[in-house]
């Protein structure tokens, strides 16, 4: 791909369309797993994962479809897992909330807020011991910064100078409670900046800005400067859990939503490709069709696999030597 912005757009489009397919097929009741949709927030995962590259180690949250797809692009096994099929990432045992694909650098997601943050410390400690130069990235929402585990982890990472990129995807709400009703302070970045941890902020929703900012962060980490904290504002389009719009519940102001819709990350990047990077519309359309086809094929293939045999229930609780 000769246009630098096209690969980023492709990843955004992949994440968005996969979730739109989930919205379309979820009512068929064959994907029986709680869906926490990334829709609207994709620029964070795509921008960060693109900058980190395939050598990065990624940990994410229960709202992790975009991070998973951006880092692994493993669409077939993603859908197999959501459908609970035997060939899924975890043979159907994890569902949407615990996606992991260590072969592609994705080390886990969790349904407990903040619980993957400390795992990043140990992954990074091991990388440092192996001297690989790889960075561990941990995504978490702004609800996670209410948890003690976050503060413990920032402290440990700064103390031990661990190569960890902390990425706070701040969509403004922990479940349904806005930040200002939860925080006894005004700026998380100001506080984290008091640790020996560099900080960056972004509220552009622009995938290229986020990608560039991440590259600056990585250069600090890779120079041995310890952890970096990214605070990236974003907006969740759908309900906290589920596939529906929830603006009727009136806990989020309509004008805020409208402002974010105006800077939808796919719209921004598509316009940039055409207006600033000279990409022809037809090239973008071909790319979109290609992504569309691959998703469609993955879904059709996933549904053809069987569910695991009930005897698999007992398999894998412990590691046992053969």
């Amino acid at each position: 791909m000769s246009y630098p912005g096209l690969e980023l757009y492709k990843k955004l489009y992949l994440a968005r369309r996969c979730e739109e397919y989930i919205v379309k097929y979820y009512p068929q009741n064959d994907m029986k797993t709680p869906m926490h949709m990334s829709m609207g927030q994709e620029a964070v995962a795509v921008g960060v994962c693109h900058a980190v590259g395939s050598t990065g180690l990624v940990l994410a949250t229960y709202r992790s479809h975009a991070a998973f797809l951006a880092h692994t692009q493993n669409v077939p096994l993603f859908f197999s897992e959501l459908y609970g099929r035997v060939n899924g990432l975890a043979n159907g045992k994890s569902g949407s909330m615990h996606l992991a694909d260590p072969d592609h650098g994705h080390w886990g997601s969790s349904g407990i807020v903040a619980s993957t943050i400390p795992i990043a410390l140990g992954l990074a400690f091991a990388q440092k011991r192996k001297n690989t130069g790889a960075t561990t990235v941990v995504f978490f929402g702004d609800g996670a910064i209410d948890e003690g585990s976050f503060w413990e982890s920032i402290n440990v990472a700064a103390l031990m100078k661990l190569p960890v990129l902390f990425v706070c995807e701040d969509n403004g709400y922990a479940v349904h409670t806005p930040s200002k009703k939860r925080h006894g302070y005004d700026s998380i970045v100001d506080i984290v900046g008091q640790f020996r941890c560099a900080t960056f902020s972004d509220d552009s929703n622009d995938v290229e800005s986020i990608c560039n900012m991440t590259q600056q962060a990585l250069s600090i980490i890779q120079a041995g400067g310890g952890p970096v904290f990214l605070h990236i504002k974003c907006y969740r389009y759908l309900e906290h859990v589920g596939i529906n719009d929830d603006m009727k519940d009136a806990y989020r102001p309509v004008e805020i939503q409208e402002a974010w819709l105006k800077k939808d990350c796919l719209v921004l990047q598509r316009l940039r490709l055409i207006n600033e990077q000279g990409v022809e519309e037809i090239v973008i359309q071909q790319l979109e069709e290609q992504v569309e086809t691959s998703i469609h094929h993955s879904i059709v293939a996933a549904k053809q696999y069987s569910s695991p045999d009930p005897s698999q229930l007992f398999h894998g609780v412990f590691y046992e030597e053969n």
Partner: protein
Amino acid sequence: MSRMITYRDALVEAVTHEMRRDSSVFVYGIDVADHKRIFDSNKGLLEEFGPNRCFNTPLSEDAMTGFGLGAALNGLRPIHIHMRVDFMILAMNQLVNMISSFRYGSGGRFKVPFVVRAIIGRGWGQSFQHNKSLHSWVAHIPGLKVIMPTSPKDALGMTMAAIRDDNPVISIEHRWLYDALGAVSHTAETQPLTGAEVIHPGNDITILATSWMNIEAKQAAEVLGRRGVTVEVVDARSISPFDETVLVESVNKTGYCIVADNDWVHCGFGAEVAARISHTCFGRLKAPVERLGFAPTPCPCTRPLENAFYTGATEIIRTIESMLKLSPTDLSGEHFFSYEKKFKGPF
């Protein structure tokens, strides 16, 4: 060829042996590398292996447990130490929600070779936040192995086996056992992580004991042995998985079973054992299974109340007498709690 060593030195030897054998093993936790070295159970590790493999951490049990999970997933073999089991409670989210299910929830793609050593406190006013065992809490969770080594042989061999195991293993050690002397083989040998063991043979009644309660049970067996009553003491060794084979064999022989657990009775390990024995030895039992453990209160500080809180050899003897319909033994000349003579505080 065997030799006598203390439980504490067995722990040191186990970890030293494994750290020499495998460079991925490391030891960390609050004050593991300070001048006291966790009651000297980490003696010499910092000097031999350096601060990258033996280090103190911030007081962040939750994050440092997750740290261990990440390190274990990524090819290292962490040993995380809690000076008291009670402090491990601060790590429960990582242990119960993350570590226990990480392998299962990945469809077997990950393995988690992670050892937690946690120490039970008792005596000298430890009171209600420094005395818990909690083995039944963690044993309740599938995906965690839980062991309670009682003898120096097991402190050495089970700790070595736990470090080599590719699963999370929580090893719960009683502080009073640290000075216990026992025979171990001339060379360091692993011991199996499951399977109970008869530590005092007898024919009249069976006591299944955990951790320190084995010491109490053996003292009870010795006292009653002088009256011609032979008590078989079975050390549970591992709480999860718990293999009841040896216990069932013993109860089928004696027809009587007491569970002496170093824990509260309600919803405890003793209930699990009693249920299994009732099921498996139903026709052989001559009396219902009895359970002994802590009084159903928080542990008080002051000595007279603390004495009333714990169950020991005396209560075991009285329970045996009641079950076997024996007259009470004269215990006026007996001296129990012998290991406590080594405790003069603050620990």
